[in-house]
C-alpha cells in the first residue's frame, strides 16, 4: 500500500531524512518510532503530500505522492500532532466543514457527521465550542476529522501527546477497531509501549535514518532476556567487553563510549559473573543497569540514548 524507496529530505545541507526505505502492506499498522527530531514527522509529511522529497520514490497504492498528489489525496487521512481544529466552532461545525471539503452534502453530510461524533463518543457535546473541551476530547475530535472521508490510509502523528489515560485507551481501542476494518495506518510515536501494543511492524528512527525495522517481538528478541549496561573507566572498557563475551548466557557484548552493553539470555546468572570479571580486571563499576527487554531498551541499545532524553 505504501512504498518508500531511498527517501531523502534536506533542509540546506542538513539531511533530516537520509535514504530510508520501507513498505507498508494493506491493513497493516506500521509504527515509526524515535525521539523528537528523528525525522518521523518529515516522513509522514512527505507521505501526506505536504512536502516534496529531495530524493527517492514514495508511492501510495501505486500513485507517486509528488507527481500524482491529486490521486493520493482522496485516499489518505491525516491526524496531525497539533489539534488542527477551529476552537470557536462546535464539534458539529468542525466536522461539517471538513466533510464539505471532501464533497459531502445534504443528508449524507449530516449522517456522516453524526456517525463520526458517535464514533468518538462526542454526540452529547456536538454543539459545544471545541475550546470548552478537555485535551482528550479534542484529540478524539481531531481523529474524527481525519477520518471524516473514510480514507484507505491513515497517518497518525503522535496522537496521544498530552492525553489523559482514559482518552489514550479510547484512542488505542479505536485504532485497533480501524485495523480490524482493514485500514492501513502509519503511526508515529515516541512512546514505545504504544508501538508494542498497536503496531504490526515498527521502524526505529534516529537522526533521519532507520536503525531497525521488524515486528516488535523480533526487535525485542534482539535483547534476548535482558540488557546489562555497565559504565566503567574508559581504559577498562575494551578488556571488560572482550571478557564479557565468554561469560555464561551472554549472546552479545559490545561497547559504546565508556559503557559495556551485554545482551544475555539469563541476566541473573550473567550479573555475578560480570562483577567477578570487573574485579579481576580491576575495573571499578561507575554504574550498573539491568534492563528488561522492550522497545525502549532496544532503542537504548541501538543508539546509546533514551527515547525521551
Amino acid at each position, binding site marked *: 500500500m505504501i512504498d518508500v524507496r531511498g527517501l531523502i529530505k534536506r533542509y540546506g545541507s542538513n539531511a533530516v531524512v537520509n535514504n530510508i526505505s520501507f513498505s507498508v502492506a494493506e491493513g497493516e499498522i506500521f509504527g515509526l518510532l524515535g525521539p523528537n527530531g528523528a525525522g518521523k514527522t518529515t516522513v509522514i509529511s512527505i507521505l*501526506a*503530500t*505536504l512536502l516534496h522529497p529531495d530524493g527517492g520514490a514514495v508511492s501510495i497504492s501505486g500513485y507517486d505522492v509528488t507527481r500524482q498528489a*491529486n490521486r493520493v*489525496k*482522496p485516499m*489518505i487521512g*491525516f491526524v*496531525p*500532532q*497539533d*489539534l*488542527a*481544529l*477551529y*476552537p*470557536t*466552532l462546535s464539534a458539529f*461545525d468542525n466536522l461539517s*466543514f*471538513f466533510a*464539505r*471539503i*471532501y*464533497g*459531502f*452534502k445534504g443528508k*449524507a453530510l449530516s449522517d456522516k457527521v453524526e456517525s463520526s461524533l458517535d464514533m468518538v463518543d462526542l454526540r452529547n457535546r456536538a454543539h459545544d*465550542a471545541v475550546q470548552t473541551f478537555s485535551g482528550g476530547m479534542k484529540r478524539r475530535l481531531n481523529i474524527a*476529522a*481525519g477520518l471524516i*472521508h473514510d480514507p484507505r490510509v491513515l497517518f497518525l502523528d503522535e496522537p496521544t501527546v498530552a492525553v489523559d489515560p482514559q482518552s489514550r485507551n479510547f484512542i488505542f481501542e479505536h485504532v485497533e477497531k480501524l485495523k480490524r476494518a482493514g485500514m492501513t495506518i502509519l503511526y508515529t510515536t515516541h512512546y514505545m509501549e504504544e508501538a508494542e501494543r498497536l503496531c504490526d511492524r515498527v521502524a526505529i528512527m534516529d537522526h533521519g535514518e532507520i536503525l531497525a525495522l521488524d515486528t516488535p517481538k523480533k526487535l525485542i528478541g534482539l535483547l534476548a532476556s535482558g540488557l546489562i549496561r555497565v559504565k566503567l573507566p574508559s581504559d577498562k572498557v575494551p578488556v571488560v567487553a572482550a571478557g564479557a563475551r565468554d561469560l555464561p548466557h551472554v549472546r552479545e557484548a559490545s561497547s559504546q563510549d565508556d559503557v559495556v552493553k551485554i545482551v544475555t539470555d539469563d541476566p541473573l546468572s550473567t550479573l555475578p559473573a560480570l562483577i567477578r570479571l570487573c574485579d579481576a580486571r580491576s575495573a571499578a563499576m561507575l554504574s550498573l543497569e539491568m534492563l528488561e527487554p522492550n522497545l525502549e531498551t532496544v532503542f537504548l541499545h541501538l543508539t546509546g540514548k533514551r527515547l525521551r532524553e
Partner: protein
Amino acid sequence: MKGPSMLNQICALTIKDLRIFVKDPAALILTFLQPLMFILIMSYALSGLYGGGDRPIRFLIVNQDQGRQAAAVIKDMQTIKSFALETTWKDAPLSRQSAERLIIEGKRNLAVIFPADFSAALEQGPGMQERRTAKVIVIADPALSSQFVDPIMGTLNGFIERRSFMAMVPKGIDYLYEASSPVKPRNDRDAFKAQAERAMEGGLSGKENKPVTLEQVSPPGMHVEKRPNAFQQNVPGYTIYGIFWIVSLLAGSVLREKREGTFRRLLIAPMGRAVMLIGKLLPFYMINLMQLIFIFALSKLLFGMTFGHSVAGVVAVSLAVSACATGLGIFVAAVARTEAQLGGLTVLLLLGLSALGGCFVPRFVMPSWLKAVGLATPHAWALDAYQDLLVRGYGFAEVLPKVGVLAAFAVLFFVIGVWRFRFE
C-alpha cells in the same frame, strides 16, 4: 459520495470563516462599532475646527471690481494672519474660471469673487429710487466643513459691512446737510434726528435691501443640493478607516490557521491552493461589504446622510475599496510571521495610511508634500471618490478613474500578497 466541487469547497471555507467571525465579539466590535464610534466622537470633538495650526488658511481672490472698494476689503482681510489670500496663480491674475478649475482639480478649496459693480453698489448715495445690489460669490468645495467655511464668510461679511459703512458716510452727510438746510431751529432737532435715522436705515445701511450680499456656491459640475454637515463629511473618512481593519482580522485568521495546523490539514484535502486562498479571502471581502452597508445605513438613519446622485458609483467605489482592504490583508498575512509582527505592522499600516489618506485630518489642511505622499495610499483615493459622490454630487463617470486607481492598488496588493504567501 461524489467528488468535491471547487464551488462547494469555496462555500464551505467561506461559511466556516463567517461562522468564526460571528462568534468573535471583539472582531464584531472592531468591524462594525469602531468606525461608528469614531464618526460620532470625532464629529463632535472636531465640530469647531477643521483648519487650525500655525499655517494660514489659503483661499483664492478674484477681484473684478472696477472701483477701489474690493481692493480695500482685500487689504483688510490680508491683515488677518490666519488667512493667506492668493490673487494670482503662476504669476497670472485669477479669473472666476481659473479659480473654479483650481477648486475642481483639488488644488484649492475656496475662492471669493468680487463682482465688477462692487464699488458702485457700496458707493451709491442714500435716497436713490433704484438701488444697486452687488453679489460677492464664495465658491467652496462641498467637501469643506461648514465649520471651516462659515468663519471665513463671517469675516468677509464683517469687512464688507465696514467698508460699506465707510463708503456711504460721506454721501450720507451730504444728504443730511441738503435735507436739513437752511439751518433749522433748535426745536426742530427731533425732526432732524428722525431724518438721520431714516437716512441710516433706508439709505446708508440699505436695511433689508443691502447694497452687497454674500452668496456661497459650489464649483460648476458639482450638483450639491444641500451643504453637507460634519457627519456627512466624516462618515466616508472613518468608514474607510474602519474597512481597512479587515486587514487585522484576515491576517490574524491566516496566522491562526497556520499556528493551529488547520491549513496543514486542508492542504492534504483534495483541494487546490487557489481554492483555499479564494475561500480564505471571500468571507472577509463579504464582511467588508456588510460593514459598508451597516455603516452607511446607520449613518442615513441616525445622521440623515444622503448618498448623492449615483448609487452605481457608491457601489463601484465600495467594491473597489473593499478589494483594496482584502488585498492589503493578504499582503500583511504574507509578510507577518508572528502575532507580534502582525500587531505592529497592522497598527503602523492602518493608522499611518489612514492619517496620510485624510481619514482623520482633511488633506487640504496638510502641506503640499504631505498631500502628495497621501496619494500613495488607497485611503486618499477612496475618500476622494466617496466625497465626490456623497458631498460633491458627482456621478458614476466622474469617479470611474478613482475606482480604477483603487482597483490597481487592489491588484498590486493581491499580486505581492499571493506571491509571498505561504500556507505553512
